[in-house]
């Protein structure tokens, strides 16, 4: 049995693709990583990355499809002080993922979007994978290892 298996956990949250759920998703992520005793910085980083991914799903994933009562799912798992967070929508998908990930690129400049969402996710998490197919949706998989794991492993 691995050393830190007592922390292993997985949760699945499904929410309406409505903007008020951005805050809800952040709270879920905070609660999920609480057992890792994250630093204030680590906590903010995860909350911000989740906020970006959920906002993308709501804003871009389901544009013009609100009548279909779209959902966003967030799956979080924890293994050996590494958290994996998958944010998934079944919306329009991204035609050109590398372009979408380019800093300052946005399809909605008139809407005061900064185009910094993916850049924020990339700099606040250890890794960010984007799986997307046009017409089928987008899944963002983010991972982050927590420093407390290093500290307590030495104890």
């Amino acid at each position, binding site marked *: 049995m691995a050393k830190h298996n007592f922390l292993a956990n997985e949760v699945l949250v499904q929410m309406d693709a409505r*903007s*008020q759920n*951005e*805050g809800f998703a*952040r709270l879920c992520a905070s609660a999920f990583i609480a057992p890792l005793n994250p630093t204030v*910085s680590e906590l*903010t980083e995860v*909350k*911000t990355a989740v*906020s*970006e991914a959920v*906002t993308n799903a*709501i*804003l871009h994933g389901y544009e013009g499809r609100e009548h279909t009562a779209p959902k966003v799912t967030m799956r979080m798992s924890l293994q050996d002080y590494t958290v994996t967070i998958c944010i998934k929508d079944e919306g329009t998908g991204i035609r050109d993922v590398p372009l979408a990930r380019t*800093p*300052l690129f946005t399809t909605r400049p008139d*809407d*005061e*979007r*900064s*185009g*910094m*969402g993916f*850049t*924020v996710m990339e*700099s606040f998490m250890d890794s960010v994978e984007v799986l997307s197919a046009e017409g089928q949706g987008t899944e963002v998989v983010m991972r982050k290892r927590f420093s407390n794991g290093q500290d307590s492993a030495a104890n």
Partner: protein
Amino acid sequence: MALRFRQEPDRLVAEVSGEIDHHSAAELKERIAREYSRGTAKDLELNFSQVTFMDSSGVGMVIGRFKDTQTRGGNMAVSGLSGDIKRLFELSGLHKIIQVK
């Protein structure tokens, strides 16, 4: 999210508190833009000292207000940034075009 305005000589100060995300940014944009266009002050300062969370939606909102002040020939400043919010400003290069107090 809550908002309070302070009118100084030729400068409007907007004190924001709470969380700035895509959900709250639209209302924030509308209220600050309305107050600014209603007055005659050229300069605008956004004070973030009571902001508990901000993501890139806040960056977009700040860029929008910066454009408003440019249109009127005024200056834009932000103040009271926490370390995390400062990092967002630096990531997006905003600190190069907007005065950080």
